[in-house]
């Protein structure tokens, strides 16, 4: 797990996913198809990533493909950090 993945995973498990079964959430585990994220959870996650990693995530990037898993969110964050 990369440092970005690990930070995002920790945030999701403690702040967003109120579910006893996600304590062992893996970076590749599906978030959306299991219905784990509602619209407020996604807003919170975006705000967390922006503040923690000093980036901005445009609304048009907040799409299912980028929130499929911890890995996908981390990839989005890393892309934004690289300035693309």
């Amino acid at each position, binding site marked *: 797990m990369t440092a970005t993945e690990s930070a995002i995973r920790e945030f999701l498990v403690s702040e967003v996913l*109120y579910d006893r079964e996600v304590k062992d959430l893996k970076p590749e585990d599906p978030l959306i*198809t299991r*219905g784990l994220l*509602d619209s*407020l959870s*996604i807003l919170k996650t975006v705000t967390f990533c922006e503040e923690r990693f000093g980036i901005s995530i445009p*609304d048009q990037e*907040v799409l*299912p493909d980028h929130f499929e898993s911890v890995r996908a969110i981390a990839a989005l964050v890393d892309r934004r950090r690289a300035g693309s």
Partner: protein
Amino acid sequence: MSTLLPHLVTESAARFASRPALVMDGRTLTYAELESLSNRFARSLAGHGVRSGDRVALWLPRSIESVVALYGVMKAGAAYVPVDPGAPPARLAYIARDCAVAGLVTVAERAAALDETFAAGAPMRAVWFAEEGPSAGAAPGGDAPRIDGMPNVTWAEVAAESDRAPELRALEGDLAYILYTSGSTGEPKGVMLSHRNALAFVEWAGDVFQVTAQDRLANHAPFHFDLSTFDLFAGARAGAAVYPLSPRIASFPAAVARQWCADRLTVWYATPSTLVLMLTRGGLSSLDLSALRVLLFAGEVFPVKYLRDLMRLAPSARYANLYGPTETNVCTWLDVAKPPEGDRPLPIGRACPYDDVLVLDESLKPVPAGAAGELWVRGATVMRGYWGRPERTALALQSIEIAPGVTDVAYRTGDLVRMQSDGNLEFLGRRDHQVKTRGYRVELGEIETVLHRHPGVDEAVVLAIPDDEVTHRLRAVVVTKAGVALDEAALRQHCADSLPRYMVPETIEFRRELPRTSSGKVDRRGLVQPHAILNTERRTDDDDGH
């Protein structure tokens, strides 16, 4: 024979057999297919012992099959009981026992969280897996799902039934569905609605908003939320195409906005929260809204600045504010002819033709013209009562004098209103601790009851913090028992074990004690104010009774 909700599909199947009834994730089901598949499902239900007057729970993500199941349940003469797909198994179990369901419709992935005891005491005849495709009947782990102690029926078995229409033994006054809403005493209560209740609204709405077979209707609201009755049933009545929103994109305003514009949907009905997020975060302003013909909203107050923005983006569409608690479905409405000016909240309008509204004081007498009072509703959409709760029903539905010498049963909404000089009702607030968040109605007391159930909690108060985009956000303030250390995440998880997600407080704050008014009550108002968070010892003056 009387007209019931499933007859809307049967009639459209006769008139528009090959037109699309449901379109979702690239799949289309025509009216002829919806009719025959829902007949098969009704036969499967009946074949496993579901009878007229029974209840069948639906607990599954939205899909074409979930809509087929809903019609199939009604065609079997039973009432469907839609349970929030995001609700934990404990809440499903509570509802299943409370209204004694005779069956459960779910998907394999969900079944893994259940066992035969989930509805202990309910007369469960069977469980149905409403899903098609290669994953049907297989849990992610690979093992076939199994709820022991009852037949497990796959979609392939349903499809093998005859598609001949089953004999439907039900009348307009019989229950079509039961919608569970938040209950202040800690337990959700089941609002019983009949076919006649639903049809009164659906026929009016279909006519007044001129829904036709050429329309494409968005379906954003989940089925446990009564906004969905317009999408599904006004759509079916007209032979229009209904577009159930894919659960995959439902939480992403930008994805929903793109999808609806790309599908050129003509009729949208959603909560203001949904529409505001599409506007503020969904990039709606850069999309092509030329197909939008009718935009309806309900469930909470629409901040006028956002409504104005929306109306400017699609100036030729028709806009209406619909109002009504689950117990009455829509009972008042306001045609919004032009963008509202100023900051005054939009009125909730006037009574729909099938209902009457009364503004009464505490002694159930009409208030003077223009004075504030509580809204009562009587008429065709008023619920039959709360399932299994005669005493709650008696409080909510009371026989009152609606005109000199005329009495009828009316529903007490708990909403405070005032009639403006133009005849429109203005919504002023609640007379209790019920709030709205994302269009959902939440009794703060229900969340407090759940918090109190935690062994480490001494006192708990849940507050609704006003929010522009989602109406309210929920914050809990908790005092733990002496010597007990609790963390926020653990307590949120405790809530999530029995409450749907939208009722789990977003933040939980721990304090040594709660501020009190001079009469000893918890000072909720003091807690909501930001300064009170910093100054925990502060006591504010008693404001009870003002």
